[in-house]
C-alpha cells in the first residue's frame, strides 16, 4: 500500500474526542432544560448527526477511505428513509383506526415512583 494503513496524528483524535463530549453534553441538556416540541426534535437530530458524523468520519477513518467504499457502505442505508416514511404513514393510519373503532385511550398512567 502507498501509505501504511490509517496513520494519523493523535491530536485529531483528541480534538474529536473532546468535541464528542461537548456535543453529548449539549444533547443531555436538551432533556435537562426540558426543551419541548419542534425545537427539542431539531436539536436532538442535529446533535445526533454531528456525533454520528464525527464517529464514522474520524474514529472509523471513513474520511480517508476511497469513494468506492464510502458509497458502498453509506449508500444503502439511504433506502431506510423509504422504510421510515412508509412505517410512519402506516403507524398514523393504525392509530386513526384504533381511535375510530376502540375510542380514545382512557389509560391513566402512574407517574414513575422512584426509590
Amino acid at each position, binding site marked *: 500500500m502507498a501509505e501504511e494503513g490509517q496513520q494519523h496524528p493523535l491530536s485529531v483524535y483528541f480534538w474529536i474526542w473532546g468535541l464528542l463530549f461537548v456535543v453529548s453534553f449539549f444533547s443531555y441538556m436538551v432533556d435537562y432544560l426540558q426543551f419541548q416540541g419542534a425545537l427539542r426534535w431539531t436539536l436532538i437530530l442535529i446533535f445526533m448527526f454531528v*456525533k454520528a458524523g464525527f464517529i464514522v468520519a474520524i474514529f*472509523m477513518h471513513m474520511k480517508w477511505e476511497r469513494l*468506492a467504499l464510502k458509497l458502498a457502505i453509506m449508500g444503502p*442505508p439511504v433506502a431506510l428513509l423509504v422504510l421510515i416514511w412508509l412505517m*410512519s404513514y402506516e403507524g398514523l393510519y393504525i392509530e386513526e383506526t384504533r381511535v375510530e373503532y376502540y375510542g380514545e385511550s382512557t389509560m391513566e398512567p402512574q407517574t414513575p415512583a422512584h426509590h
Partner: protein
Amino acid sequence: MSEAILSSGAEAPGTKGVADDFSRDKQVFGMPWGKAMMWIFLLSDTFIFSCFLVSYMSVRISSTDPWPIPSEVFALTLFGTSIPLVLIAIMTFILITSSGTMAMAVNMGYRKDRNKTFWLMVATAILGASFVGMQAFEWTKLISEGVRPWGNPFGAAQFGSSFFMITGFHGMHVSAGVIYLLVVAFRVKNGFYEKRGGNYEIVEITGLYWHFVDLVWVFIFAFFYLW
C-alpha cells in the same frame, strides 16, 4: 497477497476512481479483506438496528395510550434530588470515553507499540464491561418497578418490548465487543501477530466494530431516551 492487488494509492480520485476501483482487474476495496468484510458486516448490522428503531417508531406512533416519559422513567434520585436520565448520560460518556481509548489503541497498533495497544484495548474493554454493568442495573430497576415486555405501569405497553429488545440487543453487542477486544488485546501482547508478519490491521478492524457499537448508542440515546 501481492502489492499490486492491494495498491490503492495510484488510482484516480473521485467518481473516476470509483469506476476504476470496480472495473479494473484488481480487488475492489484497497484494504485487507478482513477490514472490507467488517465494513460489510457493520452495514448489515445497521439494517438490523434500523429495523428495531423503525418498529419502535411505528408502535410509538400507533399506540393510543400515552407513551411513558423517558426523562422521568429513567431518572435517578442522587443526594436527595431526582436527576433526569442521569444514568443514561453517564453510560453515554463512558461509551464515548471507550471510543477514544479505542482510537488511541488503533493508532498505537499502527506504530507497532504493542504494550500501549494492549493496555488501551484493556481499558476499552473495562469501560465496555462497566457500561454493560450499568445496563444490568437499569434493567433490574425497571423490572422491579413493574416494566415488562407486555406492559408497564407508566403508559403504553409497547414501551417495555421496545426497551428490552433495543437495549438488550445493543448490550449483547457491547458484551461481544468486550470479549472480542480482550481476545485481540492478549494476542497483541503475546506476539501472536508478530508470527504473522507483524501486521496490526486487526486492531483497526476491532476498532471499527467498537466504534459502531458507540455509533448505535448515539441513535438509541437520541430516539429512545431523548425523543
